[in-house]
C-alpha cells in the first residue's frame, strides 16, 4: 500500500495548480505576469500542468522596461513559441516617449517604479481582471502579508490593512468593473523550494542564472553588469568576473555574485548555503525599510 500523503514539494505544486484553476474559473481574462525570471517560469510551468492536456488558457504579459538582459527576451520569445500562447507587452520606453511617465534622475536612477504605470495601463487596456504573479511570501516582509487572491481597487492599489480574509481554500475573486485581482499561486514557496522544483522538473531557465564570464562593476555590494545603460562613476572600474544572477530584474539594478555554479545541481547547492536573502542584491529594495510595501500599495508586482 502506498503512503497516502504528499511530500512538501508535491503539496506545494498541488496547491499552486489548485490556485491557477480557481483563477481560470473565477475570472474572464486572466494573464500571467511573465518577467523571464525563475518564479514566473515556475508559475508558467505550473499553468501548463494545471490545464494539461489543454494548452495554457492565459496570455503572458511582460512589462518591458527597455533595460532588459537580451538573454531574458530571447528566453521569453522561445518559451512563447513553445507553449503556443499569446504575449502582451507593456512598454515602459513607450510610456516615457508618450510623456506618461518621466525617467528618474540622479545617480541611482532606475525604471523600477516606472513599471507600475505601464503595468496598470496594460492591465486596463487589455481588460485584464486577474494578473497572476510569481510573488512569494518569503521574499519580503510586505509580501509576507499577501493573500492568494489579492484585491486591487480601480486605481490598481493594494490596501494591506483592509484585505479580504481568506479562509481554508475558498477564494473570493468577486470585484467591480475596473478593479482587478492579483493571484499568487506560489505564495507558500521559498527560494529554495523554487530551485528544488526547477531541478526536479528540469526546467529550462535563462543562461544568466548559471555562472558565466561577464563585464561587471562593483557597486552597492554586488557586481552590476556593464551595459549601454550604465553610467560609470570616476572611481568605478569595469572588470571581468565569473558571476551568476540569483534573481533577474533590470540589467541596471540586478547584481550578480561570483560563482562557479554552472549546473542546476551546483546552483541548488550554492543557494542552500547562502547567508543573504536573494533581494539583498537588488538595489530597488535597499532604498528604505518599507520600499516594497510602498511600491506594492501603488500597484507594483
Amino acid at each position: 500500500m502506498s503512503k497516502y500523503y504528499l511530500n512538501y514539494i508535491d503539496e506545494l505544486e498541488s496547491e499552486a495548480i489548485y490556485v491557477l484553476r480557481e483563477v481560470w474559473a473565477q475570472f474572464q481574462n486572466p494573464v500571467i505576469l511573465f518577467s523571464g525570471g525563475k518564479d514566473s517560469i515556475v508559475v508558467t510551468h505550473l499553468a501548463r500542468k494545471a490545464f494539461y492536456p489543454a494548452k495554457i488558457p492565459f496570455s503572458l504579459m511582460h512589462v518591458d522596461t527597455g533595460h532588459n538582459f537580451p538573454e531574458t527576451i530571447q528566453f521569453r520569445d522561445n518559451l512563447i513559441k513553445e507553449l503556443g500562447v499569446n504575449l502582451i507587452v507593456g512598454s515602459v520606453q513607450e510610456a516615457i516617449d508618450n510623456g506618461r511617465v518621466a525617467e528618474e534622475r540622479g545617480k541611482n536612477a532606475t525604471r523600477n517604479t516606472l513599471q507600475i504605470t505601464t503595468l496598470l495601463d496594460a492591465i486596463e487596456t487589455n481588460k485584464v481582471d486577474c494578473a497572476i504573479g510569481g510573488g512569494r511570501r518569503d521574499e519580503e516582509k510586505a509580501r509576507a502579508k499577501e493573500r492568494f487572491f489579492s484585491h486591487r481597487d480601480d486605481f490598481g492599489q493594494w490596501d494591506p490593512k483592509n484585505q479580504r480574509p481568506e479562509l481554508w481554500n475558498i477564494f473570493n475573486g468577486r470585484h467591480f468593473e475596473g478593479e482587478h485581482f492579483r493571484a499568487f499561486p506560489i505564495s507558500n514557496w521559498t527560494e529554495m523550494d523554487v530551485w528544488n522544483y526547477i531541478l526536479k522538473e528540469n526546467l529550462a531557465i535563462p543562461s544568466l542564472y548559471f555562472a558565466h564570464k561577464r563585464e561587471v562593476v562593483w557597486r552597492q555590494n554586488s557586481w552590476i553588469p556593464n551595459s549601454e545603460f550604465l553610467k560609470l562613476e570616476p572611481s568605478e572600474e569595469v572588470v571581468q568576473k565569473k558571476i551568476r544572477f540569483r534573481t533577474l530584474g533590470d540589467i541596471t539594478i540586478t547584481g550578480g555574485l561570483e560563482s562557479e555554479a554552472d549546473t542546476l545541481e551546483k546552483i541548488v547547492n550554492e543557494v542552500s548555503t547562502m547567508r543573504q536573502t536573494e533581494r539583498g542584491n537588488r538595489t530597488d529594495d535597499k532604498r528604505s525599510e518599507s520600499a516594497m510595501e510602498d511600491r506594492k500599495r501603488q500597484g507594483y508586482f
Partner: protein
Amino acid sequence: MIDNNQLLRFTTAGSVDDGKSTLIGRLLYDSKSIFEDQLEAIENTSKRKGHNGVDLALFTDGLRDEREQGITIDVAYRYFTTPKRKFIIADTPGHIQYTRNMVTGASTANAAIILVDARHGVIEQTKRHAFIASLLQIPHIIVCVNKMDLVDFSEEAYNKVINQFEEFSSKLLIKDIRFIPLSALNGDNVVNRSKHTDWYQGAPLLHTLETLHISSDINKIDARFPVQTVIRPQSESHRDYRGYAGRVASGVLRVGDVITAMPSGFTSKIKSIDTFDNKLKEAYAPMSVTITLEDDIDISRGDMIVRCNNKPDASQDIEVMLCWLQNETAKPRAKYLVKHTSNEEKAMIKEVVYKIDIKTLERLEDDKSLNMNDICKVRIRTTKPLMVDSYRENRTTGSIILVDEMTNETVAAGMIV
C-alpha cells in the same frame, strides 16, 4: 532533500506581549533560517529603538504600521525548513478585535501554538484562543508556557498553568494537547533543550513540531472531488477529451471506481486519473488531478464527484458555526452568496440560534446580532442544495464563506455542524 518531508502548517496565538513574535524569531534564528542581511536590518532597528541586543520579534512584524506600533495586525506568513520538515507559520494577532484574522490563520493549520505568560497563567484571551483552535478543528495544540526565566523556571508555576488550562479545555473538543515550558527570549526549550528545566521530560518545541503525526489529520475515508473546471483541449491529439479538474478534498479515488456526480446523481466509472506527468491508478488528498469518466455525463464546476456508496448530504438547510468577519452588522434575513468548495449559491441567514460570548464561552440566547468577530450558531437556507459533510469530519466539504453581493466582501466564515 525532497524525499518524504511533509509540510506542517501551524498558527501562533497568545495575548499581546506573551512573546509570540519573539518565539517565532527564536525558532527561525536557532534553526538557522535567518539570512545575514535580515539579521543586520533588525540589528540596526533594534539599536535605533534603544534595545540592548537583537529584538528577534522584529522579524515578523511586516507592515509599516505594525513596526511603528509594535503589534501584529494581519496574518503574516513565515517559512522555515529543517532536515525533517518544511514549516509554514501563520503569525496571527491576538487582540480580540482581530479574532477574524486568527480564524483566518487557523483555518488551514495542522497545529496551533498557544502562548501563555508563566507569570499570568491562563487568562481570558488564552481561553478564547483555545476555543477558536477547537472550533476550527486544528488537530494539534501545543501550549507554550513562556517567560519561564521570569518565574525561575519553577515546575510549580508550570504545573499551575497546565492545571488551569486543562480545567477549561476538557470542555472543548481538542484531539491532541501538549505543554512545553520555555523562554522564547533566551531560547530555552525552543530549539535546544533547556539546562534549567531538568524536571521537564518532554521534547523542545521544534522537535515536537518535527514529529507531530499529521498524515492521519486528513480524512482518508470519504472520497470527495469538487470539480473546479472542465478541461476540453479540442486539439488534434485530444479531440474528444473531457476531463474534470480538481483537487481531492478527502479520501482516495481509483481508476475503475463507480462514482456518482452530485447533485445530478448520475453514475459512471472512473476511466482515468490524469496529470501532466503521469496517468495514475489512484489519487488522494490533497492531490490536484484531472479525472475522466467512462460515460459522457453532464458535470461542471461546482459539482462533486464522490464514490456511489458514500455520499455527502445534499441539503438546503444547514446549521453552521459562523464567525462574522465584517465591520458591518448582519442584516436580519439578508441574502448572501455562499461559497462552498467550488460551488456558489444564494443563501439567507434564517435564524441565529445563539451567540457565544467569546470572553466567557457562554451561550447567549438573547443577543442575536451578528457583529464583527462574533461567533454564532446559525441556520442558513440556500436556493439549491449544497453537498456538505460536517466540519468535524471534513474541513474542506464542511466549510463555507458568505459574500455580500453588494460590496463583494467576504463577510463570514462558517463551519457546518
